[in-house]
């Protein structure tokens, strides 16, 4: 999807749709099958697999407690697929352009900049995790529950250090808030079709099925 605005709004609508009802999640799943590159839209399939495994465990616990674990599992999986598609398609500057287009050069620019920095942290976390695993294997340490705490501390420490570097750089350059930018977007016909589809999915999710069909 070429237009970052449509991509962001579609992801937001589909996530809400998947969250509010099982029928919305199924519809959002179908949207994902039709309008994304499916497997190609998942940049880091191993991480996504781990997240789905984690959700499966939580869903099993919900199911065992007598509640609808299956519905939770389906809804969360679809939200993850939509999030992974959004992340994979995101280009540097997309949040900034969309923020300025949506909320102007002051608030929009600042919010866009914060979102861009968040994306950089997300990208950095993946690289940090790879390096931490290398370091652990050099020490002959196997991945297990006792490794979660030190790994988490290193990841948080690295993310905070990187954020501090960035904020210091912005401060040194005299940044206060807002900024100048002329966002340009080139929506394609398929973007518009997919965006309209996302609106329909949300509508389908929040309106009862009986409103559509005579049951």
């Amino acid at each position, binding site marked *: 999807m070429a237009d970052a605005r449509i991509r962001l709004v579609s992801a937001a609508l589909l996530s809400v749709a998947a969250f509010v009802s099982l029928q919305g999640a199924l519809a959002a799943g179908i949207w994902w099958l039709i309008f994304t590159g499916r497997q190609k839209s998942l940049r880091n399939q191993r991480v996504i697999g781990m997240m789905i495994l984690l959700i499966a465990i939580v869903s099993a616990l919900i199911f065992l407690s007598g509640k609808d674990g299956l519905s939770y599992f389906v809804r969360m999986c679809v939200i993850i697929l939509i999030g992974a598609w959004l992340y994979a398609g995101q280009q540097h500057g997309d949040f900034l352009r969309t923020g300025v287009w949506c909320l102007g050069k002051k608030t929009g620019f600042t919010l866009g900049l914060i979102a861009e920095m968040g994306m950089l942290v997300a990208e950095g976390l993946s690289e940090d995790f790879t390096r931490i695993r*290398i370091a*652990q294997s050099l020490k002959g340490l196997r991945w297990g529950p006792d490794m979660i705490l030190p790994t988490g501390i290193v990841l948080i420490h690295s993310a905070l250090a990187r954020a501090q570097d960035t904020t210091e750089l912005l401060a040194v350059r005299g940044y206060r808030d807002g900024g100048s930018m002329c966002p340009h977007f080139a929506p394609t016909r398929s973007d518009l079709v997919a965006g309209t589809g996302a609106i329909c999915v949300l509508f389908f999710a929040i309106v009862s099925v009986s409103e559509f069909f005579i049951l």
Partner: protein
Amino acid sequence: MKLVLDSLVVKREGWSLSVNGTFLPGVHLVSGDVGSGKSTLAQIIAGFQKPAHGTVSREGISKVMLSMQHPEYHITGLTVEKECASWGLNAPDILASAMLSGKEEESPFTLSRGELKRLHLACVLERATDLLLLDEPFSSLDCAEKERVCTRINQKHYGITIIFTHEQTTFPRVDHIWEICQGCLVDCGDMPGALERWQHAPARIQDLIRAHNGPRNLTTRDILEAAWQTHESG
């Protein structure tokens, strides 16, 4: 014991690195600009990344150690003492050698970057290895500490040590120099002849070579001796 890099090719978007070379026991220096692929090459040699083409053969090498540029990644202990223990080392000895005695119960993250690097290098250099890969070992260290690390590297009398660095001031005594130029690993040869072919040589070494008084090696003492001879002959 030898490390053979046979027709290695590493490719990324808009960047590639071609490598051929045989590393024998001794201290090897791999220099190159920032972003030339030194860290990537170190990870490939250590077996943590796969090249697009080519093979890495480690003959007679069983114990491999890679020291990454940022020491934070290596931390697995929640206190300095536990961090030493995680390397299988005796904490009091290591902390004494890193001049960090008395900080046993502190979190490694409360140490400054320089202190953490000292601790990390003290642990890495204490371990017995056949192949030791040091990625930018001198970053975050002051001049005195760089000299101490160089001395410690030269005290290792076994195995292959490869230093990947763009350092320009302080070096240990090295046996062989390599450099990454225009996407290729270039073999400059054994010391001291390698200095003549080393394009990334620090300016002061290049000046000494131009004055026909190239140093015998890269240690501060070697360079000072060569500078003194140049001064005397001038």
